[in-house]
Protein backbone atom coordinates (compact mmCIF):
# COMPACT_ATOMS: atom_id res chain seq x y z
CA UNK A 1 0.00 0.00 0.00
CA UNK A 2 1.31 3.41 -0.90
CA UNK A 3 2.35 5.53 2.06
CA UNK A 4 1.88 9.24 2.34
CA UNK A 5 3.36 12.11 4.27
CA UNK A 6 1.64 15.20 5.57
CA UNK A 7 4.12 18.08 5.40
CA UNK A 8 3.85 20.93 7.87
CA UNK A 9 6.17 23.91 8.26
CA UNK A 10 6.26 25.76 11.56
CA UNK A 11 6.31 29.45 10.66
CA UNK A 12 7.43 30.44 14.12
CA UNK A 13 10.69 28.62 13.38
CA UNK A 14 11.24 29.01 9.64
CA UNK A 15 14.10 31.37 8.70
CA UNK A 16 13.51 31.17 4.96
CA UNK A 17 16.84 29.46 4.27
CA UNK A 18 15.27 27.61 1.32
CA UNK A 19 17.29 24.48 2.03
CA UNK A 20 14.03 22.57 1.77
CA UNK A 21 13.31 24.01 -1.68
CA UNK A 22 16.73 23.00 -2.90
CA UNK A 23 16.76 19.54 -1.27
CA UNK A 24 13.25 18.52 -2.36
CA UNK A 25 12.60 20.49 -5.55
CA UNK A 26 8.94 21.07 -6.24
CA UNK A 27 7.76 20.15 -2.75
CA UNK A 28 8.28 23.54 -1.08
CA UNK A 29 7.93 27.18 -1.98
CA UNK A 30 8.63 30.49 -0.21
CA UNK A 31 5.77 32.90 0.30
CA UNK A 32 6.11 36.67 0.12
CA UNK A 33 7.19 36.71 3.77
CA UNK A 34 10.10 34.41 2.82
CA UNK A 35 8.41 31.62 4.80
CA UNK A 36 8.42 28.10 3.46
CA UNK A 37 5.29 26.07 2.82
CA UNK A 38 4.61 22.77 1.09
CA UNK A 39 3.31 23.07 -2.45
CA UNK A 40 1.03 20.13 -1.61
CA UNK A 41 0.41 19.21 2.01
CA UNK A 42 0.04 15.48 1.44
CA UNK A 43 2.53 13.70 -0.81
CA UNK A 44 3.65 10.13 -1.40
CA UNK A 45 6.59 9.22 0.82
CA UNK A 46 9.74 10.71 -0.68
CA UNK A 47 13.37 10.38 0.32
CA UNK A 48 14.01 13.99 -0.71
CA UNK A 49 11.24 15.26 1.53
CA UNK A 50 12.71 13.24 4.40
CA UNK A 51 16.11 14.77 3.70
CA UNK A 52 14.61 18.27 3.62
CA UNK A 53 13.11 17.75 7.07
CA UNK A 54 16.44 16.49 8.40
CA UNK A 55 18.43 19.34 6.88
CA UNK A 56 16.17 22.15 8.05
CA UNK A 57 18.40 24.29 10.28
CA UNK A 58 15.44 25.25 12.45
CA UNK A 59 13.80 21.80 12.61
CA UNK A 60 10.69 23.55 11.33
CA UNK A 61 9.41 20.72 9.14
CA UNK A 62 7.17 18.00 10.56
CA UNK A 63 6.34 14.96 8.51
CA UNK A 64 3.46 12.77 9.59
CA UNK A 65 3.16 9.41 7.97
CA UNK A 66 -0.32 8.49 6.76
CA UNK A 67 -1.41 5.16 5.39
CA UNK A 68 -4.07 6.65 3.22
CA UNK A 69 -3.90 10.09 1.69
CA UNK A 70 -7.57 10.50 2.37
CA UNK A 71 -6.92 10.31 6.12
CA UNK A 72 -5.83 13.90 5.88
CA UNK A 73 -9.41 14.86 5.26
CA UNK A 74 -8.17 17.11 2.51
CA UNK A 75 -9.04 14.90 -0.42
CA UNK A 76 -12.48 14.24 -1.78
CA UNK A 77 -13.53 11.12 -3.60
CA UNK A 78 -13.45 12.00 -7.28
CA UNK A 79 -16.88 10.53 -7.80
CA UNK A 80 -18.34 13.29 -5.65
CA UNK A 81 -19.34 11.33 -2.55
CA UNK A 82 -17.27 12.42 0.37
CA UNK A 83 -15.82 9.62 2.43
CA UNK A 84 -16.17 10.20 6.16
CA UNK A 85 -12.83 10.58 7.93
CA UNK A 86 -11.73 7.47 9.79
CA UNK A 87 -9.61 8.75 12.66
CA UNK A 88 -9.98 5.57 14.68
CA UNK A 89 -8.84 3.33 11.87
CA UNK A 90 -5.37 4.81 11.23
CA UNK A 91 -4.07 7.24 13.82
CA UNK A 92 -1.19 9.38 12.51
CA UNK A 93 2.13 7.95 13.53
CA UNK A 94 5.04 9.69 15.21
CA UNK A 95 6.57 12.41 13.08
CA UNK A 96 8.65 10.78 10.39
CA UNK A 97 12.09 12.24 10.27
CA UNK A 98 13.76 9.91 7.83
CA UNK A 99 16.44 7.33 8.45
CA UNK A 100 18.38 8.04 11.60
CA UNK A 101 22.12 7.72 11.67
CA UNK A 102 23.42 5.97 14.69
CA UNK A 103 25.74 8.24 16.69
Amino acid at each position, binding site marked *: MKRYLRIQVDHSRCVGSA*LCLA*TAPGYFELDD*QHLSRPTTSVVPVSENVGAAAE*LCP*MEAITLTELEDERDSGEHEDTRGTRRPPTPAAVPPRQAFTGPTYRR
Partner: protein
Amino acid sequence: MPDSPGRVPVDVLTEIVRTENLVDPYPFLAWVRNHDPVHHSPSGVYLVSRYADGREVLQNSKLFRNPEPDEIFRLFPAAHRHRSQLLLLHTIALNNPPAHTRLRRLVSRDFTAGRMEALRGRVGEISDRLIAAVVPPYRDGQVVDLGAAVASQLPLHVFGELLGVPESDRVELQMKMPLVLAAMHPGATEEQLLTADEINESIERYFADLVVKRRHDPQDDLISALVTARDDDPDILSFDELMSMLWGLWAGGFATTVAAINYGVLTMLRHADQVHWLRAGPAGAQSFVDELLRYEAPAATTAVSRYPRRDVRLSGGTVPEGADVRVLFTACNRDPDMFDEPDRFDPSRPAMHRTHLSFGHGLHYCLGAALARMELSVILPKIDSSFPDLTLAGEPTYRPALPVRTIDHLPVAMDAA
Protein backbone atom coordinates in the same frame (compact mmCIF):
# COMPACT_ATOMS: atom_id res chain seq x y z
CA MET B 1 37.30 40.42 -23.83
CA PRO B 2 34.98 42.16 -26.32
CA ASP B 3 34.22 45.76 -25.63
CA SER B 4 30.63 46.74 -25.16
CA PRO B 5 28.94 50.06 -24.43
CA GLY B 6 28.89 50.83 -20.74
CA ARG B 7 31.59 48.33 -19.88
CA VAL B 8 33.31 49.61 -16.80
CA PRO B 9 37.11 49.35 -17.01
CA VAL B 10 37.63 48.29 -13.40
CA ASP B 11 38.14 45.02 -11.63
CA VAL B 12 35.66 45.09 -8.77
CA LEU B 13 37.44 42.20 -7.03
CA THR B 14 40.60 44.30 -6.84
CA GLU B 15 38.81 47.55 -6.05
CA ILE B 16 36.91 46.26 -3.03
CA VAL B 17 40.12 45.42 -1.16
CA ARG B 18 41.69 48.84 -1.68
CA THR B 19 42.07 50.71 1.60
CA GLU B 20 39.40 53.36 1.12
CA ASN B 21 36.92 50.67 0.10
CA LEU B 22 37.81 48.51 3.09
CA VAL B 23 37.11 51.43 5.41
CA ASP B 24 33.78 52.25 3.74
CA PRO B 25 32.78 49.88 0.92
CA TYR B 26 29.32 51.23 0.32
CA PRO B 27 29.70 54.24 -2.00
CA PHE B 28 31.71 52.12 -4.46
CA LEU B 29 29.34 49.15 -4.10
CA ALA B 30 26.34 51.37 -4.82
CA TRP B 31 28.07 52.59 -7.94
CA VAL B 32 28.78 48.98 -9.03
CA ARG B 33 25.20 47.90 -8.35
CA ASN B 34 23.84 50.85 -10.32
CA HIS B 35 26.22 50.76 -13.29
CA ASP B 36 27.49 47.19 -13.57
CA PRO B 37 25.16 44.89 -11.62
CA VAL B 38 26.52 41.76 -13.32
CA HIS B 39 30.15 42.71 -13.40
CA HIS B 40 32.60 40.74 -15.51
CA SER B 41 35.95 41.08 -13.79
CA PRO B 42 39.10 40.84 -15.93
CA SER B 43 39.97 37.83 -13.78
CA GLY B 44 37.03 36.04 -15.44
CA VAL B 45 34.74 36.10 -12.43
CA TYR B 46 31.19 37.45 -12.66
CA LEU B 47 30.02 39.40 -9.63
CA VAL B 48 26.31 39.81 -8.94
CA SER B 49 25.33 42.81 -6.81
CA ARG B 50 21.53 43.12 -7.01
CA TYR B 51 19.65 41.40 -4.20
CA ALA B 52 17.13 39.69 -6.50
CA ASP B 53 19.87 38.34 -8.76
CA GLY B 54 21.96 37.21 -5.78
CA ARG B 55 19.05 35.27 -4.36
CA GLU B 56 18.34 33.69 -7.71
CA VAL B 57 21.93 32.50 -8.12
CA LEU B 58 21.93 31.01 -4.62
CA GLN B 59 18.47 29.51 -4.61
CA ASN B 60 18.58 27.89 -8.03
CA SER B 61 21.25 25.33 -7.26
CA LYS B 62 20.24 23.17 -10.22
CA LEU B 63 20.89 25.98 -12.69
CA PHE B 64 23.79 27.48 -10.76
CA ARG B 65 25.64 24.45 -9.60
CA ASN B 66 28.86 23.74 -7.75
CA PRO B 67 31.98 22.93 -9.72
CA GLU B 68 32.24 19.31 -10.80
CA PRO B 69 35.52 17.55 -9.97
CA ASP B 70 37.01 18.19 -13.40
CA GLU B 71 36.16 21.88 -13.07
CA ILE B 72 37.85 22.02 -9.69
CA PHE B 73 40.95 20.63 -11.35
CA ARG B 74 40.64 23.21 -14.07
CA LEU B 75 40.14 25.89 -11.45
CA PHE B 76 42.97 24.52 -9.36
CA PRO B 77 45.27 22.88 -11.91
CA ALA B 78 47.75 21.88 -9.27
CA ALA B 79 45.12 20.07 -7.21
CA HIS B 80 45.99 16.58 -8.41
CA ARG B 81 49.54 17.17 -7.24
CA HIS B 82 48.59 19.02 -4.11
CA ARG B 83 46.66 17.37 -1.29
CA SER B 84 45.83 20.74 0.18
CA GLN B 85 43.66 21.57 -2.81
CA LEU B 86 42.37 18.03 -3.16
CA LEU B 87 40.72 18.29 0.24
CA LEU B 88 38.45 20.96 -1.18
CA LEU B 89 36.84 18.37 -3.42
CA HIS B 90 35.17 16.56 -0.57
CA THR B 91 33.91 19.43 1.56
CA ILE B 92 30.15 19.84 1.93
CA ALA B 93 30.20 23.29 0.37
CA LEU B 94 31.79 22.04 -2.83
CA ASN B 95 29.47 19.12 -3.42
CA ASN B 96 26.26 18.73 -5.36
CA PRO B 97 23.45 16.38 -4.34
CA PRO B 98 23.38 13.46 -3.68
CA ALA B 99 26.83 13.56 -2.04
CA HIS B 100 25.99 16.93 -0.53
CA THR B 101 22.84 15.60 1.10
CA ARG B 102 24.67 12.60 2.53
CA LEU B 103 27.46 14.73 3.99
CA ARG B 104 25.29 17.52 5.32
CA ARG B 105 22.90 15.07 6.96
CA LEU B 106 25.77 13.82 9.10
CA VAL B 107 26.26 17.16 10.79
CA SER B 108 23.03 19.06 10.29
CA ARG B 109 21.44 18.02 13.59
CA ASP B 110 24.46 19.27 15.50
CA PHE B 111 23.97 22.83 14.27
CA THR B 112 20.24 23.35 14.62
CA ALA B 113 18.94 26.37 16.50
CA GLY B 114 17.72 24.11 19.29
CA ARG B 115 21.16 22.57 19.80
CA MET B 116 22.80 25.99 19.72
CA GLU B 117 20.45 27.37 22.37
CA ALA B 118 21.70 24.63 24.67
CA LEU B 119 25.21 26.11 24.31
CA ARG B 120 24.18 29.62 25.28
CA GLY B 121 25.32 29.25 28.88
CA ARG B 122 28.70 27.88 27.88
CA VAL B 123 29.19 30.69 25.34
CA GLY B 124 28.40 33.14 28.11
CA GLU B 125 31.05 31.59 30.36
CA ILE B 126 33.74 31.76 27.70
CA SER B 127 32.72 35.34 26.88
CA ASP B 128 32.97 36.37 30.52
CA ARG B 129 36.43 34.84 30.84
CA LEU B 130 37.75 36.61 27.75
CA ILE B 131 36.26 39.95 28.72
CA ALA B 132 37.48 39.71 32.31
CA ALA B 133 41.06 39.53 31.05
CA VAL B 134 40.88 42.97 29.41
CA VAL B 135 38.55 44.88 31.71
CA PRO B 136 41.27 45.85 34.25
CA PRO B 137 43.60 47.51 31.72
CA TYR B 138 40.56 49.12 30.09
CA ARG B 139 39.37 50.63 33.36
CA ASP B 140 42.92 51.72 33.95
CA GLY B 141 42.67 53.91 30.84
CA GLN B 142 44.78 51.70 28.59
CA VAL B 143 44.14 50.93 24.95
CA VAL B 144 42.79 47.42 24.52
CA ASP B 145 42.62 45.39 21.28
CA LEU B 146 39.12 43.91 21.38
CA GLY B 147 39.76 42.21 18.07
CA ALA B 148 42.71 40.18 19.30
CA ALA B 149 41.49 39.71 22.87
CA VAL B 150 37.82 38.89 22.37
CA ALA B 151 36.58 38.79 18.78
CA SER B 152 39.21 36.37 17.50
CA GLN B 153 39.06 34.19 20.61
CA LEU B 154 35.40 33.56 21.34
CA PRO B 155 34.42 31.76 18.10
CA LEU B 156 37.70 29.82 18.18
CA HIS B 157 36.99 28.38 21.61
CA VAL B 158 33.28 27.83 21.11
CA PHE B 159 33.87 26.04 17.84
CA GLY B 160 36.86 24.15 19.23
CA GLU B 161 34.69 22.83 22.02
CA LEU B 162 31.84 21.93 19.70
CA LEU B 163 34.14 20.08 17.35
CA GLY B 164 36.24 18.49 20.11
CA VAL B 165 39.62 20.12 19.55
CA PRO B 166 41.43 20.31 22.92
CA GLU B 167 41.87 23.83 24.23
CA SER B 168 45.68 23.70 24.21
CA ASP B 169 45.73 22.89 20.48
CA ARG B 170 43.32 25.49 19.17
CA VAL B 171 45.49 28.55 18.76
CA GLU B 172 48.21 26.69 16.86
CA LEU B 173 45.69 24.97 14.62
CA GLN B 174 44.07 28.30 13.90
CA MET B 175 47.36 30.00 13.04
CA LYS B 176 48.00 27.44 10.32
CA MET B 177 44.82 28.16 8.42
CA PRO B 178 45.66 31.46 6.63
CA LEU B 179 48.72 29.93 4.95
CA VAL B 180 46.68 27.01 3.70
CA LEU B 181 43.81 29.20 2.56
CA ALA B 182 46.20 31.56 0.74
CA ALA B 183 46.94 28.73 -1.67
CA MET B 184 43.30 28.07 -2.44
CA HIS B 185 43.13 30.13 -5.60
CA PRO B 186 44.11 29.51 -9.21
CA GLY B 187 46.95 32.03 -9.16
CA ALA B 188 48.76 30.44 -6.24
CA THR B 189 52.50 30.12 -6.80
CA GLU B 190 54.27 26.77 -6.60
CA GLU B 191 55.96 28.00 -3.44
CA GLN B 192 52.65 28.87 -1.83
CA LEU B 193 51.28 25.48 -2.81
CA LEU B 194 54.25 23.61 -1.34
CA THR B 195 53.98 25.57 1.91
CA ALA B 196 50.27 24.88 2.01
CA ASP B 197 50.88 21.18 1.41
CA GLU B 198 53.34 20.98 4.29
CA ILE B 199 51.09 22.76 6.72
CA ASN B 200 48.12 20.84 5.48
CA GLU B 201 49.90 17.57 6.09
CA SER B 202 50.45 18.56 9.70
CA ILE B 203 46.79 19.55 10.06
CA GLU B 204 45.64 16.25 8.59
CA ARG B 205 48.01 14.32 10.83
CA TYR B 206 46.60 16.21 13.78
CA PHE B 207 43.01 15.38 12.88
CA ALA B 208 43.88 11.76 12.09
CA ASP B 209 45.46 11.43 15.56
CA LEU B 210 42.45 13.07 17.16
CA VAL B 211 40.14 10.69 15.31
CA VAL B 212 42.04 7.72 16.76
CA LYS B 213 41.85 9.21 20.27
CA ARG B 214 38.10 9.78 19.97
CA ARG B 215 37.52 6.29 18.64
CA HIS B 216 39.03 4.83 21.77
CA ASP B 217 37.58 7.42 24.12
CA PRO B 218 34.50 9.05 22.59
CA GLN B 219 33.47 12.41 23.97
CA ASP B 220 30.31 14.38 23.56
CA ASP B 221 31.65 16.28 20.55
CA LEU B 222 31.27 16.38 16.81
CA ILE B 223 34.48 14.53 15.98
CA SER B 224 33.39 11.59 18.13
CA ALA B 225 29.98 11.56 16.46
CA LEU B 226 31.54 11.55 13.00
CA VAL B 227 33.99 8.80 13.91
CA THR B 228 31.17 6.65 15.29
CA ALA B 229 29.03 7.27 12.20
CA ARG B 230 31.89 6.24 9.94
CA ASP B 231 32.78 3.19 12.01
CA ASP B 232 29.17 2.08 11.97
CA ASP B 233 28.92 2.46 8.22
CA PRO B 234 32.05 3.32 6.21
CA ASP B 235 29.93 4.01 3.13
CA ILE B 236 28.44 7.02 4.85
CA LEU B 237 31.75 8.87 5.07
CA SER B 238 35.08 7.98 3.50
CA PHE B 239 38.33 8.79 5.26
CA ASP B 240 39.06 11.58 2.78
CA GLU B 241 35.57 12.95 3.36
CA LEU B 242 36.08 12.85 7.12
CA MET B 243 39.37 14.74 6.79
CA SER B 244 37.75 17.23 4.41
CA MET B 245 34.83 17.67 6.76
CA LEU B 246 37.03 18.44 9.77
CA TRP B 247 39.35 20.59 7.72
CA GLY B 248 36.43 22.39 6.06
CA LEU B 249 34.64 23.00 9.33
CA TRP B 250 37.81 24.34 10.90
CA ALA B 251 38.72 26.51 7.91
CA GLY B 252 35.27 27.96 7.41
CA GLY B 253 33.75 27.55 10.82
CA PHE B 254 34.50 30.74 12.59
CA ALA B 255 36.52 33.37 10.72
CA THR B 256 33.23 34.90 9.64
CA THR B 257 31.92 35.05 13.21
CA VAL B 258 35.14 36.76 14.27
CA ALA B 259 34.58 39.40 11.59
CA ALA B 260 30.95 39.79 12.67
CA ILE B 261 31.93 40.48 16.27
CA ASN B 262 34.42 43.12 15.16
CA TYR B 263 31.86 44.78 12.92
CA GLY B 264 29.37 44.47 15.75
CA VAL B 265 31.61 46.57 17.99
CA LEU B 266 32.23 49.10 15.21
CA THR B 267 28.51 49.34 14.59
CA MET B 268 27.84 49.87 18.30
CA LEU B 269 30.32 52.74 18.19
CA ARG B 270 29.02 54.27 14.97
CA HIS B 271 25.33 53.94 15.87
CA ALA B 272 25.23 54.59 19.59
CA ASP B 273 21.56 55.56 19.31
CA GLN B 274 20.72 51.93 18.46
CA VAL B 275 22.72 50.27 21.22
CA HIS B 276 19.64 50.21 23.47
CA TRP B 277 18.54 47.12 21.51
CA LEU B 278 21.39 45.24 23.17
CA ARG B 279 19.99 46.18 26.55
CA ALA B 280 16.47 44.96 25.80
CA GLY B 281 16.89 41.27 26.58
CA PRO B 282 17.51 38.35 24.19
CA ALA B 283 14.89 39.36 21.61
CA GLY B 284 16.22 42.90 21.37
CA ALA B 285 19.79 41.66 21.09
CA GLN B 286 18.72 39.25 18.35
CA SER B 287 17.14 42.10 16.35
CA PHE B 288 20.37 44.08 16.63
CA VAL B 289 22.39 41.06 15.51
CA ASP B 290 20.18 40.24 12.52
CA GLU B 291 20.28 43.82 11.27
CA LEU B 292 24.05 43.86 11.89
CA LEU B 293 24.43 40.82 9.65
CA ARG B 294 22.64 42.66 6.86
CA TYR B 295 24.34 45.97 7.45
CA GLU B 296 27.86 44.52 7.57
CA ALA B 297 27.98 41.15 5.87
CA PRO B 298 30.96 39.30 7.37
CA ALA B 299 31.80 37.80 3.99
CA ALA B 300 31.96 40.23 1.08
CA THR B 301 31.34 37.51 -1.50
CA THR B 302 30.43 33.85 -1.74
CA ALA B 303 33.44 31.65 -1.03
CA VAL B 304 32.44 28.99 -3.53
CA SER B 305 31.78 29.82 -7.17
CA ARG B 306 28.61 28.81 -8.94
CA TYR B 307 28.60 27.68 -12.58
CA PRO B 308 25.49 28.22 -14.73
CA ARG B 309 24.49 25.24 -16.84
CA ARG B 310 23.47 27.52 -19.67
CA ASP B 311 23.49 31.24 -20.44
CA VAL B 312 21.27 32.91 -17.84
CA ARG B 313 19.70 36.32 -18.08
CA LEU B 314 19.58 37.95 -14.67
CA SER B 315 17.87 41.29 -14.12
CA GLY B 316 21.25 43.00 -14.17
CA GLY B 317 22.77 41.23 -17.15
CA THR B 318 23.60 37.85 -18.65
CA VAL B 319 26.06 35.30 -17.33
CA PRO B 320 27.33 32.81 -19.89
CA GLU B 321 27.24 29.05 -19.45
CA GLY B 322 30.12 27.78 -17.33
CA ALA B 323 31.07 31.19 -15.94
CA ASP B 324 32.51 31.57 -12.45
CA VAL B 325 29.67 33.43 -10.73
CA ARG B 326 29.87 34.94 -7.25
CA VAL B 327 27.43 36.95 -5.19
CA LEU B 328 28.57 40.25 -3.72
CA PHE B 329 26.80 40.09 -0.34
CA THR B 330 27.87 43.53 0.84
CA ALA B 331 26.21 45.06 -2.23
CA CYS B 332 23.08 42.88 -2.24
CA ASN B 333 22.34 43.62 1.40
CA ARG B 334 22.21 47.38 0.65
CA ASP B 335 20.00 47.12 -2.41
CA PRO B 336 17.29 49.82 -2.19
CA ASP B 337 15.01 47.65 -4.33
CA MET B 338 14.86 45.26 -1.39
CA PHE B 339 15.49 47.40 1.69
CA ASP B 340 14.04 50.83 2.41
CA GLU B 341 16.81 53.29 3.21
CA PRO B 342 19.36 50.46 3.02
CA ASP B 343 22.20 52.50 4.45
CA ARG B 344 20.31 53.15 7.67
CA PHE B 345 21.16 50.81 10.52
CA ASP B 346 17.77 49.97 11.98
CA PRO B 347 17.22 46.89 14.14
CA SER B 348 13.46 47.52 14.12
CA ARG B 349 13.22 46.12 10.56
CA PRO B 350 10.95 43.08 10.86
CA ALA B 351 12.10 39.53 10.22
CA MET B 352 15.59 40.53 9.07
CA HIS B 353 16.85 37.03 9.83
CA ARG B 354 14.78 35.79 6.90
CA THR B 355 15.86 38.48 4.50
CA HIS B 356 19.56 39.27 4.50
CA LEU B 357 21.87 37.18 2.35
CA SER B 358 24.86 37.00 4.68
CA PHE B 359 24.26 33.32 5.50
CA GLY B 360 23.63 32.55 1.86
CA HIS B 361 20.46 30.88 0.67
CA GLY B 362 19.30 27.50 -0.51
CA LEU B 363 21.31 24.29 -0.56
CA HIS B 364 24.49 25.66 1.02
CA TYR B 365 22.85 27.98 3.55
CA CYS B 366 25.38 28.49 6.29
CA LEU B 367 25.60 25.44 8.53
CA GLY B 368 26.72 27.63 11.42
CA ALA B 369 24.03 30.29 11.07
CA ALA B 370 22.26 29.51 14.35
CA LEU B 371 25.59 29.28 16.17
CA ALA B 372 26.72 32.64 14.82
CA ARG B 373 23.42 34.32 15.68
CA MET B 374 23.54 32.95 19.21
CA GLU B 375 27.18 33.83 19.81
CA LEU B 376 26.70 37.39 18.59
CA SER B 377 23.59 37.85 20.72
CA VAL B 378 25.59 36.76 23.78
CA ILE B 379 28.85 38.64 23.26
CA LEU B 380 27.68 42.04 22.03
CA PRO B 381 25.48 42.86 25.04
CA LYS B 382 28.32 41.73 27.32
CA ILE B 383 30.77 44.02 25.53
CA ASP B 384 28.27 46.85 25.86
CA SER B 385 27.86 46.35 29.60
CA SER B 386 31.51 45.55 30.40
CA PHE B 387 33.16 48.47 28.61
CA PRO B 388 31.41 51.72 29.52
CA ASP B 389 32.22 54.83 27.49
CA LEU B 390 33.71 52.68 24.75
CA THR B 391 35.45 54.57 21.97
CA LEU B 392 37.85 53.80 19.13
CA ALA B 393 41.47 54.44 20.09
CA GLY B 394 42.98 54.10 16.64
CA GLU B 395 42.17 52.88 13.16
CA PRO B 396 40.94 49.28 12.89
CA THR B 397 43.26 47.13 10.79
CA TYR B 398 41.25 45.89 7.80
CA ARG B 399 42.86 42.91 6.10
CA PRO B 400 42.85 43.29 2.29
CA ALA B 401 41.57 39.78 1.68
CA LEU B 402 38.42 38.04 0.44
CA PRO B 403 35.89 36.76 1.02
CA VAL B 404 35.90 37.25 4.81
CA ARG B 405 36.14 40.91 5.87
CA THR B 406 38.76 40.26 8.50
CA ILE B 407 39.72 42.95 10.98
CA ASP B 408 43.00 42.07 12.65
CA HIS B 409 43.10 44.75 15.33
CA LEU B 410 40.36 46.82 16.93
CA PRO B 411 41.91 49.28 19.40
CA VAL B 412 39.47 50.72 21.91
CA ALA B 413 39.71 52.69 25.13
CA MET B 414 37.50 54.34 27.71
CA ASP B 415 36.40 57.74 26.51
CA ALA B 416 38.15 60.19 28.78
CA ALA B 417 35.74 63.02 27.96
